[in-house]
């Protein structure tokens, strides 16, 4: 059985986000923010949540190695800035120490009666939104292969890496499907890398969440992204079901036409591998 390895400080796992930063990511969502800005917020919140989940009385435990690959124009690059741009993957404790900055945000909260309350929150930033150039998806996925090939060789018994890939468009640098297949074939003793794909809404359509059948998609590129996506492993099925999604056998880690709610859920579900075990 795959995806059973316990995640511990001695045997951490890796989470790699692969982010489309092409020009179209500056289009606005219905919420008014650009796709790029909302995604950056969700990604930064996800990093913060991972750090919080790894924080114990004795400090931040390094259960995860986390990286961000950003692609646009003709190539891919490290999505972290500042002093984290020295390598593709970082331990949780390194992340915790080195955000680019900490912003103060006004967060909207629903009161019990449904009215809105505003609250000032501290919001650490590791990743900045950008959107310029073409959709160098093949370059982005190839960069992920380079990073994770090495990581898997160094961590043969670990829970396999999870890749969250976010895009809104068609690749401009070739067919990404064989590259995705190679990425998924990278493995530890506990199974192959998990590639989850998030396709962003172009208009106001309803999202298709964790489909189990390619025929549910009409769009040719949507079908390709479906085939590029790993089956949801048991822990992700459980996390998705807890959020109220109806998960059928064979469901893939893929959302097509995601809006703000499904974007946030995708990141949450994709970054919750089996809770770390060591005490």
């Amino acid at each position, binding site marked *: 059985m795959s995806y059973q390895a316990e995640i511990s400080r001695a045997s951490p796992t890796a989470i790699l986000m692969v982010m489309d930063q092409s020009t179209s990511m500056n289009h606005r969502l219905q919420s008014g923010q650009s796709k790029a800005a909302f995604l950056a*917020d969700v990604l930064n919140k996800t990093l913060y949540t991972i750090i919080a989940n790894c924080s114990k009385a004795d400090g931040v435990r390094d259960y995860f190695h986390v990286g961000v690959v950003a692609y646009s124009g003709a190539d891919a690059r490290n999505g972290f800035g500042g002093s984290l741009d020295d390598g593709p993957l970082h331990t949780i404790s390194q992340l915790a120490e080195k955000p680019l900055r900490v912003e103060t945000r006004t967060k*909207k*909260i629903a009161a019990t009666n*449904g*009215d809105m309350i505003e609250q000032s*929150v501290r919001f650490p930033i590791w990743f900045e939104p950008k959107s310029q150039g073409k959709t160098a998806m093949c370059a982005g996925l190839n960069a992920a292969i380079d990073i994770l090939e090495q990581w898997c060789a160094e961590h043969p018994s670990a829970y396999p890496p999870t890749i969250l890939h976010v895009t809104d468009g068609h690749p401009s640098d070739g067919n990404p499907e064989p590259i995705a297949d190679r990425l998924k074939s990278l493995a530890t003793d506990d199974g192959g890398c998990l590639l989850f794909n998030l396709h962003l809404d172009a*208009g106001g359509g*309803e999202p298709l969440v964790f489909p189990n059948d390619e025929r549910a998609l009409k769009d040719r590129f949507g079908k390709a992204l479906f085939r590029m996506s790993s089956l949801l492993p048991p822990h992700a099925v459980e996390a998705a079901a807890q959020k109220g999604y109806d998960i059928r056998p064979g469901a893939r880690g893929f959302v097509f036409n995601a809006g703000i709610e499904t974007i946030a859920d995708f990141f949450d579900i994709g970054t919750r591998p089996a809770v770390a075990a060591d005490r």
Partner: protein
Amino acid sequence: MAYQAEISRDNPTFFLFVVDQSGSMEDLTETGRSKANFVADVLNKTIYTLVASCSKADGVRNYFDVGVLAYGGSEIKTGFGGMLADRIVHPINAISEHTLRVEERQKKMDDGAGGVVSLKTKFPIWFDPKNNGGTPMRAALTKTVETVADWCRSHTTSYPPTILHVTDGESTDGAPEDMANGLREIATKDGPALLFNLHVTADGGRGTVFPTSEAELSDDYSKMLFRMSSPLPAHLAKYAGDKGYSIVDGSRGFIFNGDPQCIVDFFEIGTRPKLVADR
């Protein structure tokens, strides 16, 4: 130059929504809602936006007359109900005072910190979808011609009327094209009435937005609706361009099978005349 008139309380303009309520509008869209329900939501929201744009410190100013004409089965009648049921056209301040009801809806919003919050919002209703029978489009456009001609007679210097026509099907009472041609010849001193058509079919084919030629459309019915549509005047063409649509000289105010965001944008673009002038 046409379409230059300033819109003021002394010189209001006129928006007329002509809505197909034939039985087929109850067909479900991909999202599981009927087309009729979706169009009703967008129309109610559009009316609310028009009310809001006329709301000043001293109350709701009558910059607009707004009409709703509903057709289906053997009926051509006002789409307003309650206190407004006596006429097709009302000044905007009467509309603001006489909603059918105000619903409470949940709206998912970006919470400003990488998450999503569900908040209560007030949603005023003026128009309820009621669907049955055939599609008496010719009779509906005949009534539209009468209504618009009446209005233009008493508003000779105003910005001309804008008619937004939403339909999903073929006319069941004869070809409406000559009526539409007659409608586009009714004019104020500031130019002829603008007729924009939104064609929503059930088969979900590829959408065509603001085309310049009927060659871009495949079925005869869409081609006719294209010919029935006014070219976008310069200020609306610019506004549509700002929303990301590709607009060229000769683009008509016509959308075939737009996605939901397109439908929302169609109403927004169509109800955006030059900003009001009086203080």
